């Protein structure tokens, strides 16, 4: 049994335009101290998958089936009061937009202390002292002063560190980081990624890292799940994934990176590999391979049925009828 | 009493207030709803009817009227003594009277007040006392007025604000601001005033007839909206509601706890037709360029088109008295010769046709913007439409209508006059040349002369005859088309008795009180 087990998670939303199939039959697991990357293009369901765990999706429109077990405890059916004990304590979240994710009206100290007082029953003073320690932990200089400041007084990188401090305040088992560095500059991003690595090493926190940047995946993740149109297309340990991508979509993503083209060789007519076409509408869920229309190796059988996730190596799964021959270089 | 063919409309039965002789107990506060905010409570400057309503219980005058509108002495001991040439008036005063601040009321005090009324430049009484050239005291209890000409209406003026006597002590201490804290001789004395909201009077201990006074306090509440006034009366928040709108009389009457008494009838209401007022009523008159202004025949047609009884019934629930002359039908000064022409659409049409003016003839009717006047205007509009007039109604605030009237900036205009006991007060200023209220700009020696002569005459019948001449002339000229005499309706809780309500429409509370349970 893993720390976190997600089985057959299907999430949809009722909207005015119809039912949005956001996530379909996704299964994944997370081990203690592991950094699992969820990647894929915008709208492929990364956020929805991850937010299903702490149940932070809008309750009135969300239709969720499947099972999410944390340490064997089923979260999908947990009553809301207990769920609140899980949120922030066992599962915590770092959001993408550091500016808007912090409440502009309260000091960062208050916002950190709040979670401590809620879950750890710390006194006001103790919570404050702990907040200072936490800011130090995430690498903010002069933390004793910083806790008295308001979010708008901090830079983007610092705000994101504050978000992380809030998230790790109660030493959660699972930390979900939704594109934590996308809004940050590269030099800042490097520092923030270091904080995650450090937390994992020191606290053993398991991290689900959502990103669309394969560079970040390569840098920090242990394992990665590539999602496409709400489904997991491929799942593998990071080295394996980069060395032997099986799904044509994964391969396409890797080849589309400018860095890949540059690495492929200097000068001349450099071109990036394109993935033609567009992501299918999440309003429909046809029983065919969602990637078929854009797939270079697609064949008729891809239209007939939907490929399911098949094991191709010890920990390497791909959902494709015609996977790239292993060894094809990205 | 009035022409127009129909029998006079019978108003709903109204009890006669003066006939209410139930015994009342001593004490209590009477809440009275007034229909407007009085102006300054200074007899010299005051100009409003509501002001007079307050004064009547607080500031007694040399003379007063009684239930039959006969002039009677009040602070004076007797009716004035006239010298043979009519130019000297001797007034004997009652003795032993005190102002409500304890000061003794004597001839000196009367002289001081009369002089203030007469000669203070801000006094609105100057016109009333214009004939008086000097006031002298003869001993403690007599004053003598010297006149420039014989002036019969003077006694009536002295029965109104011009005859109110103010405490000399208060005049000395308050000066021009006497109105903010007035002191007179009266059954009640001024206690306090909240601007626009209420005036409070208290029983006056120094009053000479204090034993008659039962109420401790009168609170006048200013409630402008007639429906709210009626509602307050019904809910018991006030026990007396002044000047009920005709629309609310029936409702109040139907209430088992309330009764309605009527008074007034001296005033009148009608249509000014601008026939000569081009630069202001006190300036030189000229010729007005409007169909009605130019043509007496069209004016006649306009008047003939109006069904006064229908107006009274539709607009006023039949509660007023239709008439076509400024003096009430029961006035001793009204000659029997004065007869209204009957409502006659056919003749009106004929006149219009004969005039040769193409129809519809445009007429602008300026109207104060209250609901009742607007209703009246619309009825006039409809009635005259039939004979070929196209009346356009233009409402303006009351104040603006007065100004337009004075300045002659109107075509036709609805106005009224609150009415005076002496006919002179209803005529001189209004239909004689240069009168400040002569909005139509009527000017005719056959009007001016008889009125002037009547002011000097003392015999009632003689005066009546003179007035009849002037009035008939004015009626032919049709600068003002009289419509009706308005009556005042006073709503009262049945627990209130002893209220006196006369022709002048001023509820007197001297003897009023709450009935013993």
């Amino acid at each position, binding site marked *: 049994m893993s720390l976190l087990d997600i089985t057959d998670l299907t999430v949809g939303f009722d*909207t*005015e*335009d119809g039912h949005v199939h956001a996530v379909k039959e996704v299964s994944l697991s997370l081990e203690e101290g592991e950094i699992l990357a969820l990647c894929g*293009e*915008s*709208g*492929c369901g990364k956020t929805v998958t991850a937010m299903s765990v702490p149940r932070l999706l*809008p309750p009135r*429109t969300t239709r969720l089936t499947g099972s999410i077990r944390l340490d064997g405890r089923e979260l999908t059916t947990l009553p809301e009061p207990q769920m609140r004990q899980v949120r922030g304590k066992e599962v915590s979240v770092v959001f993408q937009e550091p500016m808007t994710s912090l409440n502009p009206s309260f000091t960062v100290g208050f916002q950190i202390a709040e979670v401590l007082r809620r879950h750890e029953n710390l006194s006001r003073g103790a919570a404050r002292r702990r907040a200072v320690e936490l800011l130090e932990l995430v690498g903010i200089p002069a933390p004793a002063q910083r806790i008295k400041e308001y979010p708008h007084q901090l830079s983007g990188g610092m705000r994101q560190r504050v978000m992380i401090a809030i998230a790790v305040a109660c030493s959660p088992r699972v930390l979900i980081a939704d594109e934590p560095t996308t809004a940050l500059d590269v030099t800042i991003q490097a520092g923030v990624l270091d904080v995650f690595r450090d937390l994992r090493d020191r606290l053993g926190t398991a991290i689900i890292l959502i990103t669309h940047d394969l560079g970040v995946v390569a840098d920090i993740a242990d394992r990665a799940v590539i999602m496409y149109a709400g489904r997991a297309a491929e799942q593998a340990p990071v080295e394996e994934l980069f060395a032997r991508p099986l799904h044509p979509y994964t391969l396409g993503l890797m080849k589309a990176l400018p860095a890949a083209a540059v690495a492929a060789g200097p000068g001349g007519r450099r071109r990036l590999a394109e993935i033609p076409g*567009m*992501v*299918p*509408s*999440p*309003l429909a869920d046809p029983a065919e391979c969602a990637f078929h229309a854009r797939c270079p190796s697609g064949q008729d059988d891809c239209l007939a049925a939907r490929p399911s996730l098949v094991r191709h190596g010890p920990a390497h799964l791909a959902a494709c009828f015609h996977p790239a021959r292993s060894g094809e270089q990205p | 009493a009035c022409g127009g063919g129909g029998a006079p409309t019978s108003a709903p039965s109204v009890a006669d207030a003066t006939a209410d002789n139930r015994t009342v107990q001593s004490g209590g506060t009477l809440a009275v709803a007034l229909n407007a905010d009085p102006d300054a409570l200074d007899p010299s400057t005051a100009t409003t009817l509501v002001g007079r309503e307050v004064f009547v219980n607080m500031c007694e005058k040399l003379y007063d009227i009684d239930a039959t509108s006969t002039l009677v002495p009040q602070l004076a001991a007797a009716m004035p003594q006239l010298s043979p040439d009519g130019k000297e008036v001797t007034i004997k005063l009652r003795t032993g009277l005190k102002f409500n601040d304890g000061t003794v009321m004597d001839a000196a005090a009367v002289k001081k007040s009369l002089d203030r009324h007469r000669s203070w430049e801000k006094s609105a009484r100057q016109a009333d006392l214009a004939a008086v050239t000097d006031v002298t005291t003869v001993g403690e209890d007599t004053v003598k007025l010297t006149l420039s000409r014989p002036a019969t209406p003077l006694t009536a003026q002295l029965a109104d604000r011009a005859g109110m006597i103010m405490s000399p002590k208060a005049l000395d201490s308050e000066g021009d601001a006497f109105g903010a804290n007035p002191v007179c001789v009266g059954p009640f004395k001024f206690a306090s005033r909240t601007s626009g909201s209420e005036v409070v009077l208290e029983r006056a201990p120094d009053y000479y007839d204090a034993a008659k006074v039962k109420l401790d306090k009168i609170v006048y509440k200013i409630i402008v909206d*007639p*429906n709210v006034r009626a509602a307050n009366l019904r809910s018991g928040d006030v026990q007396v509601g002044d000047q009920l*709108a005709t*629309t*609310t009389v*029936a*409702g109040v009457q139907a209430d088992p706890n309330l009764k309605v008494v009527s008074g007034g009838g001296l005033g009148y209401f009608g249509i000014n037709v601008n026939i000569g007022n081009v630069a202001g009523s006190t300036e030189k008159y000229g010729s007005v360029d409007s169909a009605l202004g130019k043509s007496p025949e069209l004016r006649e047609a306009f008047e003939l088109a109006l069904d006064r009884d*229908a107006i009274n*019934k*539709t607009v006023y629930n039949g509660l007023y008295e239709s008439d076509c002359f400024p003096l009430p039908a029961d006035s001793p000064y009204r000659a029997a010769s004065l007869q209204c022409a009957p409502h006659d659409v056919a003749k009106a049409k004929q006149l219009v046709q004969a005039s040769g003016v193409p129809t519809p003839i445009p007429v602008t009717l300026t*109207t104060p*913007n*209250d*609901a009742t006047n*607007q*209703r009246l*205007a*619309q*009825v006039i*509009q*409809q009635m005259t439409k039939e004979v070929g007039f196209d009346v356009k*109604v*233009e*409402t*303006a*605030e009351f104040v*603006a209508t007065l100004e337009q009237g004075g300045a002659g900036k109107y075509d036709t205009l609805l106005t009224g006059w609150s009415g005076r006991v002496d006919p002179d007060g209803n005529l001189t200023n209004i239909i004689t040349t240069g009168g400040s209220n002569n909005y139509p700009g009527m000017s005719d020696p056959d009007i001016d002369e008889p009125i002037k002569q009547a002011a000097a005459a003392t015999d009632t019948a003689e005066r009546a005859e003179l007035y009849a001449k002037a009035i008939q002339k004015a009626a032919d000229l049709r600068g003002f088309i009289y419509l009706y005499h308005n009556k005042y309706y006073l709503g009262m809780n049945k627990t209130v008795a002893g209220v006196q309500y006369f022709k002048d429409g001023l509820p007197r509370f001297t003897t009023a009180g709450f009935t013993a349970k």
Partner: protein
Amino acid sequence: MADPMTVSVGAIRVGSPAERRRRLWRRFRRRPMPMAGLVLVAGFLLLALVGPLVTGDPIIQDYAATLAPPSAAHPMGTDDLGRDVLARIASGARVSLQAGVLSTLLAMVAGIPIGLLAGFYRRWLDPLVGRLVDVTLAFPFLVFAVGLAAIIGPSLTGVVLALGFAQLPAVIRITRGEVLAIKEMDYVSAAIADGAADGHILLRYVLPNCAGPLIVQATVAIPTAIIGEATLSFLGLGVQPPTPSWGVMLTVAQQYLDVAPWLAIWPGLLIALATLGFNLLGDGLRDVLDPRSGL
């Protein structure tokens, strides 16, 4: 800032303009409240535009039938001068419509250019306009209206002017706010970079993109103006007799509350329904035009 999520739903959004309109209409139609609003407003417009043609003369008086309760001849009864209340209601709807629409139009015509210029030329014009808006806001509307009626005489024109003036600050503020936002849009920069003249940018780029909030504002302003007209007429500052307006009718009705309550019921009810209709419609439009609130 780009919203990455919308890129992904791009697929849903594809469609011809007609399709898009149909989609907005569908979103709108599904909501019961805005639809009710639409029905009420349509009814009101029908009453105002067609009503007077089919009902009787609202002015003709019948002294034999004053204050008659509703009957077959007079479905809503008659008033104190025996006039048909139904006919007066229908004509009154016209006055309300005029007061509502004209004053709003006036405010828009005067306010939009001011707002556009203030927002566009922020440095010079904006502070001045800001202060003027403040003063306007500080001036109690009714005092202004009473004063205006006193100056130009009570009339529909006065009402429209006063109501239009009262709406002006809102229109200026909304326009200005929109301009400030739109000015930051890259498509405006692109037009400037192309060498477009200011006038062209204001009219072709900025103005059309302010339309949404301004339309919503109009649907909020019209009912306010309808009530405003009624209030002013109620205070005797509105249209001139014999023209019926709902507010005037209420003033008259006020005198007969106990003997002829229907006189007060009809105009009061219609004012409430008409304004309710516009308010519901406005709420609905706001929801539909602002996609965020739809989710």
